């Protein structure tokens, strides 16, 4: 098999529309994702950020159809290359997994089978999707190892996961995910478990893969610094909802949602905080599934919250081209140290 031919369309590769996912907790149905919409174009890297428990991973898993038995999609649709995949049975979904979309996980330490040589694990993916003949597969594995920057691919392929470092293992995972040349790669915190230097290498690798193969990447992380490095467009999530979507430059220059502003302020760096000063944080924490407020979910933690925020839930609305935010009182200017200074610009959303 050669590269999947890229269809000459401008339609997004992945369209998620109005998706809601319910999780059953102690017999109660709780909404974990609430009316989430998202689109990813071909060759685009979309970053999803948010604190732990805001639904980032849930979103990735629902695209892959890997939601646990206690969760299910209750509303909305997911289309990959125009085909509806949210309602497919496992049998039908299997043809998409690995082949047209694949996923790399957070912990390369545990995502590889410790009893199997890594080359074999990459070859498995080719076997699963019946790609090439036996000798083709062996050659392709070596090629993939080179592609993800594992030098000495022949020796590497014969090693077991415990013989490799964390970064190398993550490279093997990426090789597995890319083996069948998927159009979409979902990366769920792929660098969180790695050292800072290794993290930078893996990010470079993902960028290189996008440039070379035109693979779209959905990059899930809680690290704003990582987002700044790789993403073209950023989706900020909070409590199971999308609160802001913007191209990466616009988001960092003009965050509109107070939550985004808070996230940006909490980035650590050598110059971010004066000596002796506390690192700015967002007070409180993400509401747990049962008690997401009925108004704006961020209102209880928001310094600029007003009565309307508590009573009515804001919808996503465009404040400037390609920049949407779900907030009644979006921030206007680049954030200053007084987070959430209320703005005069109002969203044109209802």
């Amino acid at each position, binding site marked *: 098999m050669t590269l999947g031919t890229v269809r000459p369309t401008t339609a997004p590769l992945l369209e998620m529309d109005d998706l809601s996912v319910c999780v059953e907790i102690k017999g109660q149905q709780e909404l974990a994702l609430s009316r989430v919409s998202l689109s990813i174009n071909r060759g685009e890297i979309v970053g999803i950020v948010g604190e732990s428990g805001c639904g980032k991973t849930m979103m990735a898993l629902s695209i892959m159809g*890997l939601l646990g*038995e206690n969760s299910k999609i209750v509303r909305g649709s997911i289309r990959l290359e125009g085909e509806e995949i949210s309602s497919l049975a496992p049998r039908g979904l299997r043809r998409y*997994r*690995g082949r047209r979309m694949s996923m790399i996980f957070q*912990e390369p330490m545990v995502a590889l089978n410790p009893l199997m040589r890594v080359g074999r694990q990459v070859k498995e993916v080719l076997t699963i*999707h019946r790609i090439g003949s036996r000798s083709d597969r062996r050659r392709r594995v070596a090629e993939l190892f080179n592609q993800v920057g594992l030098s000495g691919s022949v020796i590497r392929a014969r090693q077991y996961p415990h013989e490799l470092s964390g970064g190398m293992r993550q490279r093997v995972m990426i090789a597995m995910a890319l083996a069948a040349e998927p159009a979409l790669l979902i990366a769920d915190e792929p660098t969180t478990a790695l050292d800072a230097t290794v993290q930078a290498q893996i990010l470079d690798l993902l960028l290189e893969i996008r440039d070379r193969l035109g693979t779209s990447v959905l990059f899930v992380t809680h690290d704003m610094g990582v987002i700044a490095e790789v993403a073209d467009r950023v989706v900020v999530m909070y409590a199971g909802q999308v609160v802001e979507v913007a191209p990466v430059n616009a988001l960092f220059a003009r965050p509109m949602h107070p939550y985004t502003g808070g996230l940006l302020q909490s980035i650590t760096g050598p110059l971010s905080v004066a000596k002796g000063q506390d690192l700015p944080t967002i007070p409180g924490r993400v509401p747990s599934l049962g008690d997401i407020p009925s108004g704006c979910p961020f209102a209880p933690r928001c310094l600029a919250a007003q009565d309307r925020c508590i009573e009515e839930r804001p919808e996503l609305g465009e404040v400037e081209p390609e920049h949407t935010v779900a907030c009644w009182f979006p921030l206007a200017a680049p954030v200053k140290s007084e987070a959430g200074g209320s703005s005069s610009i109002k969203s044109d959303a209802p």
Partner: protein
Amino acid sequence: MTIAINQPWGPEVPLSRAKRAGKLRKLLRWWPLAILGIAAFAAAFPYLLAPLNPDLTHLNARLQGPGFRADGLKFLLGTDDLGRDVLSRVIWGVRVSVVVATTAVFAAGVFGGAMGIIAGVRKRILGPVIMRIADMVLSIPFFLLAILVVAALGPNLRNLVIVLALVRWPRYARVAYAQTLEASEREFVRAAVALGARQLRVVRRHILPEVLPALVVIATLEVGLMVIYEAALSFIGLGVQPPTPSWGSMLSTGQQFVASAWWIATFPGLALFLLVVAVNRLGDLIRDLLDPKGRI
């Protein structure tokens, strides 16, 4: 006294006496292998070891004690009530014990293991059904089930194996079930699913290798029990039928003569004891190797 430590950069220090003794002790831990080797040899070639025909009766030499000589024959361990050589019968009796125990363990292990894995993968309906059946089997008294099966099928070697496998498969099923559930939660299993692997492949490539060591450990510990169960069934007449020599039936005969001819029951009993101890000890050693953390 100074303590010599072997260091790679230091001068070569000869192995101390204590260290050599430690090595020897380590080697001696594997004594069960010697006994099992003899048992396996006796099971394979009893005619090479047994001095006499085990089924041949010597009516003029009935119930004679160990070391009895008659007609130029020597009965090293005495004779039974029909004048058969006890030593030869003990040697031939290994065959039944070894064959029944190993095939029963194999049958129960394969069936139980498969059931457990299926139950662990099909969590909704089939799994609970299998595991409840396993619970039910465990709650039926062993001898009751044995009598039922033998009554229905007739007493012979094959049915003996069937009975033992039928009684013991739930143990393997439970272990396989638990290991399968544990393995399915592993991240690499989820990764395999995310890359498009179908269930059968996931089981074969990722779950089976996790389950198998546990099953091997259980199996080695079960062999000794199977030897005893076989003897027990033969003892009450549900196992191997006469004149085939089996330790259980020899014990049963010897029991009638314990007061007058102690050797008839004593020697098969000793052989049974030795074999079971050796098997169990070996099972422990294998478990230490395969399951050093003692999870099973």
